[in-house]
């Protein structure tokens, strides 16, 4: 429908959160900002991200964004996280601008996860 507030991709990732969860022995970051609570955990193997999981308390866009992030970065080099940009998600998932702040919370979480993995260097 023309004015569905959720794009098909948001609906898909919200409905199917395969990456929801925690990982044993993983590096994890927790963030609690702007009414959003996030936890990202990652395991690395040979400099590449092996597995990603999330937990989230937030609106559908935040949850879908977490799922999108996890499913896109598994298998990528650890350093790639430092290049993660909220704007990619905004664009791919058609997040309304008024929710920019929330997606920036995810960006913060991803970048600090990158730093914790050791691969990332602060820009």
């Amino acid at each position: 429908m023309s004015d569905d507030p959720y794009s098909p991709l948001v609906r898909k990732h919200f409905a199917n959160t395969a990456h929801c969860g925690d990982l044993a022995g993983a590096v994890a970051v927790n963030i609690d900002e702007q009414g959003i609570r996030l936890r990202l955990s990652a395991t690395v193997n040979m400099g590449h991200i092996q597995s990603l999981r999330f937990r989230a308390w937030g609106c559908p866009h935040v949850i879908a964004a977490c799922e999108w992030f996890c499913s896109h970065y598994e298998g990528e080099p650890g350093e790639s996280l430092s290049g993660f940009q909220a704007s990619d998600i905004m664009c791919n998932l058609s997040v309304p601008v008024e929710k920019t702040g929330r997606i920036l919370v995810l960006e913060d979480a991803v970048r600090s996860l990158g730093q914790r993995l050791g691969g990332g260097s602060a820009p």
Partner: protein
Amino acid sequence: MAQDFIYLDYAASTPVDPRVAECMRDCRESGYANPSSNHIAGRVSRANIERAAEQLAALLNVDPATLIWTSGATESDNLGIAGAARFRSHRGKHLVTLLTEHKAVTDVFRMLEKQGFEVTWLKPEDDGRLDPAAFAAALRKDTQLASIMYVNNEMGVMQDIEAIGSICREHDVLFHVDAAQAVGKVPIDLQALPVDLLSLTAHKFYGPKGIGALYIADRPGCHVEPILFGGGQQQRIRPGTLPADLIAGLGLAAEIAQPRIDTDHDHLKNLRRRLWAGIQGIEGVLVNGNIESGFPGILNVSVEDVEGESLLLELEPICVATGSACNSKSQEPSYVLRALGRSDLLAQSAIRFSMGRPTTEHEVELAARRYREAVARLRDLATAAAP
């Protein structure tokens, strides 16, 4: 189009009763003339309107001449409140209302405040009810008008209109009642109830959208200044070509409602009981409003540790509201629930289930199950993220 959703948002709007739809079609075919026209065709339209006035008058037990047609409760609220406040402004400029009124009431009072009126905003008890004694205490020598709604649109809370109205009569204060959620659903006898102005809208009781009415009691000092200007229709109180078909639809909807108010009420009570039975076991769930005294067509619940927007999406295709429909587009927690002292977190998780004549037990049971599952899933998604 086949319905691929379960509609539990009857407080936002109801489907038009098929008999009402048919009546409007008939009216349009024979009575398309302008009811102000002084010829045979115009008289057909006029007769349709007169019949509707009698039907609505019977539902409310009033004289048909006390009814003014409007485009809906929003306009009725504006006309009743601003019109009466201005009509009485030479006597005094103090007005009284409730923080939990519909926006069509609160925004009119806000506008009047800017125009030099003084408004006392009453805060209801935590269960949404206004204590008549607190109301009486707010009245002053210069109070001219009070507006208190009958059934709250978000929580179903019912106010003691009789007690509040009696206090108004004692103090010579005009009493406006926004009865948009009450007309056709709870018995209203305006010969018995001390109410001077009453707003209603057809689409909340199986009539068409875009038509409503304002009752103006035939009492000394009870009158409104118009807020729209134009032709001399409707005793110069409200101009514009009258939509005879919509008015006929409203009238028939009133006539259909009258004999079944009690059975409808029992039906809703049963549905709400089942719905609540299905969700009351959830940890951290609580009712907004008062389930014993409230209108049974509405059940508004908040739940701890769940995000409201995600809850709403997870409930799809069950159509329910967060806050009231009028605020649904904004993401802010309901001002009504905040006025009751709910935390922002609890207010934002509020879901209003509202049921109607066509609602089935199966639908509410399904809704309860989906609600339980949705809460469980969203809590699971958030588990370890909880700080």
